């Protein structure tokens, strides 16, 4: 559509006739007096994270060390009857639970992901204030489709990854890469405001916090 861009730009410039030509964007003051970090001890921050993730009706497990992680993940798989588990390529060997069919995500098709019972990923960070986990496209979080199509998402987060606020998250993740913020399982309140977990995304989310 040649001309649309020029015409729109012309209209916008004409509409802003009241803005002095010498004004720059930074001349319009933005005061950022809000809190960009949480002022609390680490143990409180971790407790807040665990509590707030759970408030979305996700399950939170606090795991004492890496040696216990594979067992905790294995128990979760058993509880949910998971036989096939998709695993992001960068997930460490020693996290992988025994007793399930592990599908390494080299290039699984959408149909294969849809047929899998669950998925195991790490993450980029967590946010205590909002009870959020952040996935960033890459080896540990995987590509976006793998944490979307299987019905159960097992997500491991290490204590040092738990941040206080959204502001801290945006300092940590790489702009440009796909990022997905997850706060509890898929949900809707569209029918008479009754909350239903799981419409299209994973119906169950279990978070393993590695202390």
């Amino acid at each position, binding site marked *: 559509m040649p001309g*649309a861009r020029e015409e729109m730009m012309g209209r916008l410039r004409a509409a802003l006739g009241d803005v002095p030509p010498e004004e720059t964007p930074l001349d319009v003051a933005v005061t950022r007096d809000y809190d960009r970090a949480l002022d609390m001890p680490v143990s409180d921050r971790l407790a807040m994270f665990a509590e707030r993730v759970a408030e979305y009706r996700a399950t939170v497990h606090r795991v004492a060390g890496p040696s216990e992680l594979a067992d905790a993940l294995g128990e979760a798989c058993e509880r949910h009857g998971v036989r096939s588990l998709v695993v992001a390529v960068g997930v460490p060997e020693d996290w992988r639970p025994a007793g399930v069919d592990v599908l390494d995500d080299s290039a699984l098709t959408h149909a294969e992901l849809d047929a899998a019972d669950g998925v195991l990923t790490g993450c980029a960070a967590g946010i205590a204030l909002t009870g959020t986990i952040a996935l960033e496209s890459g080896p540990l979080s995987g590509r976006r489709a793998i944490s979307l199509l299987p019905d159960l998402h097992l997500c491991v987060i290490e204590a040092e990854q738990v941040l206080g606020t959204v502001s801290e998250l945006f300092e940590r993740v790489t702009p440009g890469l*796909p990022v997905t913020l997850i706060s509890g399982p898929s949900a809707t309140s*569209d029918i008479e405001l009754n909350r239903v977990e799981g419409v299209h995304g994973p119906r169950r989310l279990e978070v393993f916090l590695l202390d």
Partner: protein
Amino acid sequence: MSRTERLGFPAAAREALADTQLRRNIGKATQTIRAKRAAVVEELDDWEELREAGRAIKERTLRHLPAYLEQLEASVTAAGGRVHWARDGAEANAIVAGIAEAHDSREIIKVKSLASDEIKFNEAMAARGISAWETDLAELIIQLGDDEQSHILVPAIHRNRAEIRELFQRTLAAEGEQVTDEPAALAELARKHLRRKFLSVPVGVSGANFCVAETGTICVVESEGNGRMCTTLPRVLVTIAGIEKVLPTWGDLEVFLALLPRSSTGERMNPYTSLWSGVTEGDGPEEFHLVLLDNGRSDVLADDFARQTLNCIRCSACLNVCPVYERTGGHAYESVYPGPIGAILTPQLVGLDEAGTLPYASSLCGACYEVCPVKIDIPSVLVHLRGKVVAKKREKRLDPEVAALKTAAFAFSTRGRYERAQKLSRGQKVLGRGRGSVPPPLSAWTGARDLPEVPTQTFREWWRGRANGHGGG
């Protein structure tokens, strides 16, 4: 979405007020969400600071919109996407249909998007033989029932579960399948129906909550996961974004992701927020298009007072606190943008000739301004637009309201006239008309309002009397 001619708010509201189910459902929804919002806003000490930052970022953006749009175009292009410019809805629809046709697709999967509703996207696609599938549960209910949205956030809130059960039984259930009215069962049916679409349709269409000029990042917030599906699984993704959705920097997102979910659903954070920039090899769509939509927005921008209307981030907090919306529901506003924000946005987008009654759909109580996360002074914009409506009428004919305002201007212009007018107004009683009414044509005003009683003494009279030693008051 079958409305073609506007009734005007008073007539449309009369229809809505007669619908008791609509009123009950809207009342329950607004009260529930209002309480949830209040609780999560209360727990933040820095809410006012966040609101002020949100307002200021929007002001900065709007005053320099051409530069930010150019920057956004460059960033999206650098990230492997393509940017299109659409002066109006027809142009935007033609661009998207052209993209679908170029990929030989007769189907599109769609994330709930107010911009697409505004430009009647689904009808435009249907006219070109393309089926656009709504994937948000409420939007699916609206689409299957050939119905209209009644709330920004929960568009099908006017429907109860029995009606939805009947609709799904008729449209989605397999032969012989019996559908129950349990919300979970209904959601499951929608899940199964749409999963097939998610896995097969090659073109996805979304709106945008925010577009970051600095990085070319698009941000979509949602709850169900249909947004993630539509923006991740198809080979081709098209985002239709109003030009006011741009934010200057990546860091600015921190303010809006704190403001939006708490104001909208009353959650600390919505279940899913998707952020992407152009295309990423090995992850998600292979082709990305961003359609930048004007469709009346540059006209809104041209009014330097009403410009703040474009701050709106579509949270719907103003709907939930509005005493007028709570009683009439969304349909009375005859627009995809209902409630207080609709009352100021719609007339500016479509023109005062089309929607000149909407600026009057308010009691000016100010609750909308108090909750607005980007501090749009909706009551003042309403009054400003009423002034424009009156000015327009003045151009056309001598209207009673215009005459009244002209008389007032004459009476207030000198002290003598003002004092004589005050004395005259006391004559109202002497004339025996009593309290609460005035003669025609001004009786149109008192038909819906009580006229305040005229005091026996004016302030000036009292003041003069006081100086003479018999003040009384």
